[in-house]
């Protein structure tokens, strides 16, 4: 279910990346209180040209619709950045975006 919004810009060899993921980020405790299903992103991986440039393990500690930002030197204009998220059920979602 995880939709994402990605923005990547290169300037002087540094790629600034911002990405937002649609997820309730409800861990077990929160889901019990809200009476909804447990639903959170477990892992976020970003790759440029097949090379991992960013990887995090996430959980309910992050807010709903988490936003991440990072800088990397691993890409240039025209490359594609690919985000893969894994949710608590092991479901993955992928989205690509060209670096500007």
């Amino acid at each position, binding site marked *: 279910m995880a*939709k994402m*919004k990605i*923005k990547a810009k290169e300037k002087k060899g540094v790629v600034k990346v*911002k990405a*937002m993921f649609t997820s309730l980020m409800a861990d077990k405790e*929160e889901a019990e*209180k*809200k009476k909804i299903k447990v639903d959170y992103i477990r892992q976020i991986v970003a790759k440029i040209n097949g090379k991992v440039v960013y990887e995090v393990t996430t959980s309910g500690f992050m807010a*709903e*619709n988490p*936003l991440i*930002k990072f800088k990397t030197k691993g890409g240039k204009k025209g490359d594609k950045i690919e985000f893969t998220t894994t949710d608590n059920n092991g479901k993955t979602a992928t989205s690509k975006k060209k670096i500007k």
Partner: protein
Amino acid sequence: MFKLDRKSILIGASAFASTALLFTGCLSSSTGVDEKASAPSNAITAPSTLGEYAIKNKTAIDGGVTYVRANGVETAYAYNQQSTKGVSFGRRATPNEIKAWDLDALPDGTGLPEGEGTVEEGDELYEAQCASCHGEFGAGGKGYPQLTGGNQSKDENGVVITLKNQRVYGKTDAPKRTIGTYWPKATTLFTYIRDAMPYAHPKSLTDNETYAITAYLLAQNGIKIDGEEMDEEYALNKEKLVKVVLPNNNGFYPNIDGPNGPENVRAFFADRAKNIGAGVRCMKDCKDPGGQDGKTEAGVVKIKYEMSDVVPPYSTVRDLPPEVEDKTVSKAEKMYNQSCKLCHATPQMGAPAVGDIDAWKDVLAKGFDKVVINAITGMGGMPPKGGNEDLTNTDVKLIVEFMVDSSKEKH
């Protein structure tokens, strides 16, 4: 475009529709009283004249009274009939002035300027001018409105589910009112951004830039125009903006657009029981309104066990409790606490701290009298008398004595 007169009526109607919604939400039940009966008798029989309070066959939009204005038009406000002789109303607005003021755009596109902007341009503008308050991707933050997010899906009645959220306890969600979930018309998005944003310097965006930002926000909300998804190159213009149907388009009621707007509102509120579920508004003998059918007993709650014997008994005396003088604290120390302690309690403020023997040895090298004079006239960062001009010179001397005494080596 409407004529000015019509417009002001519409504004009044919408304001009333919203307040009426609020009020009727608080009413609980009905008696089915004829609303005419509650009006003064003269209002029914007397022929309505200009500015007079009158309930004719029509009720006011919110069920209250109406005032005749002119040419059969009624308003919810009393018409001021004072003589205007000798009052200067200034001059008529010039066509150009009206043009500069009359900027709004209707949902059908009337009044929208020509122009075009792409999502990509909007992205750049948003990042430079909007993101600092509204957050990246419109996610909101720092107390400024969230523009994207929220669940746009609807229940079986066509109500956006997110809007039904109620913050009942700690972790439950409040309704999310974003463009995608709450705004009914996309044209108002354009006019609002143009007229009121960016917050720090409004009206600084050109029409093209405003179209671009509007396009970006619609794209971030996942809005489709004519079934077409908005990608980066999507260019928004007047024709396309009019076609936008936002998810909560039908979430507002009744329809107040057009010259029939007030009548629509009237018809809507005439059937309160059905449309709002609040029953008919009680205007007379409302002490025992009964249940929804008017027959069952009213649920008036009274205090069953009133507390009458309270120890100590209830009192209306509002004096402060008498001040008990602390004999262990000298007068000088009291004054020190009030005027000097802030700086002299610790060495952090740069002043010799009370109790710091070495610091006071240095101070006293000048001689006690000189120290007192310094304290009275001020010295370095210290204002005269420590900033408290109410102190007399004798008081200051007493305080200095106290401070010196407190900073001596104890044997």
